[in-house]
């Protein structure tokens, strides 16, 4: 019989030497692989200590074999897991044996893809697996686990349920007018629309937090040379990564640091001081600095508080502000406030809402700066059941919200029942994109290509 889906194999443990190395096989030829290598198909879901034998009869390794017959496996297909010794040479030997048995190497994410295709998990859950593996903080890992367990999917499904029930009402009014329900004026639809919009706003808010938890924010430190950008980087990261000297123009290339604030990843970028360049290397550094500034979620414009009393950004560094694509994500940070001798001046400065005053040297104001960064991303304390989310989920939620809001306007402005019904249909389509029910296949490909091999 032709098997229409290939059997795939991959090493599931990280490359290099390790105590244990795991090889995973999934597909129709799995049993055949087991018989060749182990001499039999192991009893389902029992750990079995056994020899792994090559085609020439030689023992390649010894270890635990686990067999999960379809459909009760991660992928929904027959799955074999071989746990051997974690040396790259041994694992390669076993892989070679298996690949000779009409089995091919798995593509990145292919095991999860099959789990999705076989209806073992929905799309949001499949993404959560990747997020769990990639999570950089405890909070992010907890969030990814919540998504994997279906917390996010369930909240989407609840909303889809509300939408379907509202659609049912509206469609019934359209197709059975003799039932004498005037849905355009009876007020019920408006109440339920507002209810769904409220539900959506809550989920969207949580999803924004969830996406921040996963993706975090990029903060670029910019300013004239020698205002203390590198010192601030070191202070924020708690490390001594950037070279700090009194010489202007010490930092020439970009320097990146990674920390997290209460679970939110913070990507810090230190840049070369902006001035009329004095050499090829520095010019290139400045060019790169601008590239980062344009992409940043937040730009911290550092000024030396001991040199200038200006608080307004356009006064602090007019040529910089002019070139900035978006003024809204700019914060002026006055560094070196420890050098200000005039107490009255300092008091006035600290009361200003426009600037944040810090001392990278003493650590003064750093907590306030962190608080400021969290609040400008809208990142708040994480509640129970916080899940991770991705940009594509936010897009879908926003689309759904806009469709429903548009339908609401149609209902109020033109009493157009057919348009309201269409908006509700589109909103449902948008929401079900998240769990993968209506996802176009090219999207699938993109999603799965970001997985790591073996999962």
């Amino acid at each position, binding site marked *: *019989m*032709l*098997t*229409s*889906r290939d059997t795939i194999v991959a090493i599931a443990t990280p490359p290099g030497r390790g105590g244990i190395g795991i090889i995973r096989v999934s*597909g*129709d030829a799995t049993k055949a692989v087991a018989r060749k290598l182990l001499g039999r198909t192991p009893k389902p879901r029992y750990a079995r200590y056994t020899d792994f034998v090559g085609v020439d009869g030689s023992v390649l390794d010894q270890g635990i074999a686990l067999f999960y017959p379809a*459909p009760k496996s991660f992928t*929904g*297909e027959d799955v074999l897991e071989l746990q051997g010794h974690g040396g790259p040479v041994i694992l390669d030997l076993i892989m070679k044996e298996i690949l000779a048995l009409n089995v091919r190497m798995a593509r990145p994410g292919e095991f999860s893809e*099959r789990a*999705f*295709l*076989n*209806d073992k998990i929905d799309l949001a859950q499949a993404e959560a697996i990747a997020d769990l593996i990639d999570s950089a903080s405890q909070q992010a890992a907890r969030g990814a686990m919540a998504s994997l367990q279906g917390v996010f999917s369930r909240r989407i499904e609840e909303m889809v349920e509300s939408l379907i029930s509202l659609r049912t009402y509206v*469609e019934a*009014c*359209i*197709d*059975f*007018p*003799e039932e*004498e329900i005037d849905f*355009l004026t009876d007020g019920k639809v408006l109440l339920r629309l507002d209810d769904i919009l409220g539900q959506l706003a809550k989920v969207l808010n949580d999803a924004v937090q969830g996406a921040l938890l996963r993706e975090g924010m990029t903060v670029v430190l910019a300013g004239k040379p020698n205002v203390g950008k590198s010192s601030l980087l070191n202070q924020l990261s708690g490390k001594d990564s950037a070279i700090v000297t009194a010489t202007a123009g010490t930092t020439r290339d970009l320097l990146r640091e990674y920390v997290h604030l209460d679970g939110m990843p913070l990507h810090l970028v230190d840049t070369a001081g902006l001035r009329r360049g004095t050499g090829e290397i520095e010019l290139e550094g400045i060019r790169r600095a601008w590239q980062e500034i344009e992409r940043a979620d937040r730009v911290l414009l550092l000024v030396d508080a001991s040199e200038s009393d200006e608080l307004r950004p356009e006064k602090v560094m007019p040529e910089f502000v002019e070139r900035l694509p978006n003024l809204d994500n700019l914060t002026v940070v006055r560094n070196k406030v420890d050098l200000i001798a005039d107490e009255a001046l300092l008091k006035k400065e600290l009361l200003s809402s426009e600037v944040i005053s810090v001392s990278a040297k003493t650590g003064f104001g750093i907590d306030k700066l962190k608080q400021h960064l969290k609040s400008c991303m809208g990142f708040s304390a994480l509640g129970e059941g916080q899940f991770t989310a991705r940009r594509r989920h936010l897009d879908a939620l926003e689309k759904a919200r806009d469709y429903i809001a548009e339908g609401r306007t149609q209902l109020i*402005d*033109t*009493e*157009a*029942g*057919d*348009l309201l*019904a*269409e908006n509700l*249909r*589109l909103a449902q389509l948008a929401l079900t994109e998240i769990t*993968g*029910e*209506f*996802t*176009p*296949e090219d999207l*699938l490909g993109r999603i799965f290509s970001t997985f790591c091999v073996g999962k």
Partner: protein
Amino acid sequence: MKDQQFDVIVVGGGHAGTEAAAASARMGCRTLLLTQNIETLGQMSCNPAIGGIGKSHLVKEIDALGGVMALATDRAGIHFRILNSRKGPAVRATRAQTDRLLYKQAIRYHLENQPCLTLCQQTVDDLVVEKDRVVGVVTQMGLKFYAESTVLTVGTFLGGIIHIGLESHAGGRAGDPPSNRLADRLRELPFRVDRLKTGTPPRIDGRTVDFTVMEIQPGDTPEPVMSYMGSAADHPQQIPCHITHTNEKTHDIIRRGLDRSPLFTGVIDGTGPRYCPSIEDKIIRFSDKTSHQIFVEPEGLTTTEIYPNGLSTSLPLDVQQDLIRSIKGFERAVICRPGYAIEYDYFDPRDLKYSLETRHLKSLFFAGQINGTTGYEEAGAQGLLAGINAARASRQQDPWYPRRDEGYLGVLIDDLITLGTTEPYRMFTSRAEYRLILRQDNADRRLTETGRSLGLIEDARWQSFCNKRDAIEARKQKLAGHWIQPGGVVAENLNTLVENPISRAYNLLELLKRPRLHVTELLKVSGLNWPGDEINEQVEIDVKYEGYISRQAEEVERLQRQENTRLPKDIVYQDISGLSAEVRQKLEQVKPFTLGQASRISGVTPAAVSLLLIHLKKNAGRKQLKSA
């Protein structure tokens, strides 16, 4: 008249048969219509009305392709209304109460004046089959007729059994015999057959009804028109309908009679329609409702017979009598025909192709209730398509059928052959995902050009269509070319009509996008002048719905690739690993023609569709390797 040869034979003279025969003959095929009784051509066996939500959409599409139903409705309609008038143009529908006799006359007139069409009164008993192909029919008298294509539109006549109370007898409709020999013959062929049921209410003598205590429901003014070629001047005299209600006493009578109901004693096993239940069904299922609405509809201008819509029942006659008399206005009412339920054979429409040709026998087409639908409009729509494709097949031309985004016709056919049906299938606007595009007001703009190229549209209709199409374009151009500057007197007049006063120059087409602003007002303000008519309506809908319509068009575009991906005939779903047993079974049952069709089978998940796609890609790769 022995052993005659035709291009197309149509068996059955109901709403499917007449449209099929008329379409085939319009296309110039020598067509024979065989009916048990020429007197019943175009007979309305159930309620005396054409159109309604979702249904008038079909009627207007039939009309846009040159069919007869809408024309006959304008000749026979005695009460016209627009339903859902306030809920938006996409769900607006026209409904006409019709005079049964005038309707039959109009249909017969059309058929008798249709060149290429022969009418013949014969009961068909058998098909002439050569190998896997139907080449003709045999009648009860033993006459044989041969044709390239044969269309069966035998309605509820196959194995029809009529139930009134616990009594039952064979019948195709009250007063007509069933077609049992043909039913037996078809059951021998490899079609999947099942039973459905439908019912009608008792008819009442209008002279015994007190209309003065009922709510009166007049038709709309101006009188709506059904056909694009029709006008209110075609309509006969208009008369009103009435509304009354059932009450607790009625419901008690029905509950007491249930022990003699064929529905509730298990005598009937066919499935009835959920949306058009019998009154006994309604009382059981909605037991908390103390009253149901009854539309009291006249059967015609020259008869006193009344059709009490909403009282379909198969209870025994004495119960029918009692329940009728418990209703306000019916206290002295006399039943002139009892209500009844009818059970009949239908063929699983999943055994059909998009052309309505059967998969098992070539050159044989099925249309109408035989495919599990209910309603004149659904029957007529299928008849038209079967007629077109029977004619095309007789000339070895490829089939033609509209897509789901082109017409309710497309939705109907795709639903039938993809989903099958377990209850009588009725059209609703919610079945159409591209509802905003598929309106009753633009059926001609969607289909008439195609109809013309298919040979269905005669010159007069074509000319009228072209005039309309050009006028819409011309008016749009004029509106787009007329500007209103802010500040002037014209702008001041305009600002009294809109919420936000204009602050820059606008042309009239842009202004039309604003809510509650209509062409007539813009004409008044601007000084432009042309008649207020349906052309304005088209311009307005085009402009106001533009955003939505283009969004739907994009959706259609996106899904087009799936629709165009054909599934090989010999695909073996068992061999595709990953498909669940349930999905495999469903795919085997339907045997979809395209990936798009497969995606619409209920229970076939998007993941399953991806698996199919992977399988197709891989097989295509293999084939390339082999041929290389």
